[in-house]
């Protein structure tokens, strides 16, 4: 039985591994559409649209998370083009095209500076190995 931990985690951005990732998370959800009819006594649903999202925290040094942050922290308009992200652990992964929806820089006394990004996947995942 193989367990995985943080040391197995990787974050790949447009094919390049992002260094110094502190953590990442991934979530998926599907909407429910109500189909209850008047004569029913219990609510019924069918699955609606599915979506994926996630976040990552990266230790900031030199320009480690620069490419990701510049998607949203920039003087120019936000580009409409999505970026390819791959969240991996061991030999497993989920990957897809994302839009960076928020970027946050944290600088505090006694702590290493970190950048936190949140992202929303657009379209279906392009690869999944669980």
């Amino acid at each position, binding site marked *: 039985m193989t367990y995985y931990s943080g040391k197995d985690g990787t974050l790949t951005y447009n094919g390049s591994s992002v260094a110094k990732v502190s953590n990442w998370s991934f979530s998926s959800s599907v909407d429910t*559409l*109500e*189909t*209850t*009819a*008047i*004569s029913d006594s219990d609510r019924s649903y*069918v699955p*609606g*649209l599915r979506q994926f999202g996630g976040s990552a925290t990266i230790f900031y040094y030199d320009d480690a998370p620069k490419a990701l942050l510049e998607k949203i922290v920039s003087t120019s308009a936000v580009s409409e083009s999505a970026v390819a992200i791959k969240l991996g652990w061991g030999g497993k992964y989920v990957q897809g095209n994302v839009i960076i929806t928020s970027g946050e820089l944290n600088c505090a006394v006694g702590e290493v500076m970190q950048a936190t990004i949140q992202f929303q996947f657009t379209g279906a995942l392009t690869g999944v190995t669980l």
Partner: protein
Amino acid sequence: MSPQGPDFPSYVPSSRSLAMGDFPSKTFTSQSGIQATVQYGNRRTGQTLDLAYNNTTEDIAAAVYDHYLACKGTIYWFFVLEDVKKGNSTFHNQSSSSNGRYSATPWGMRYKYAEAPQFSSVKPGRMSVTVKLIGVLDS
């Protein structure tokens, strides 16, 4: 007399709303403020029945679409069957009689489309449909 169309598709809606209409009458108000109301008929008319089919299948949406065409839009009258009136059995427990509360035939009243049905696409394979029917007296 307008022609009879096919019965309304027999599917239980997600929501249903009934407005009773009224008896034909006219109210006269004199200069002194006294009102007199004259009843012109003993048969209620103008009853409206709003139906909604939320997140339903394309088959049900297509059935409503085809029924509207078969009834030539708002021209033909038709009957509304039991499934459409399901869910409030004590309210329309006389639905098969001429006095049934949801019945399409109280005092000879039949239903027509008050306006064209509305179709909203929700996702592949699922649509929402709203229908507004009006009861009419037809000789």
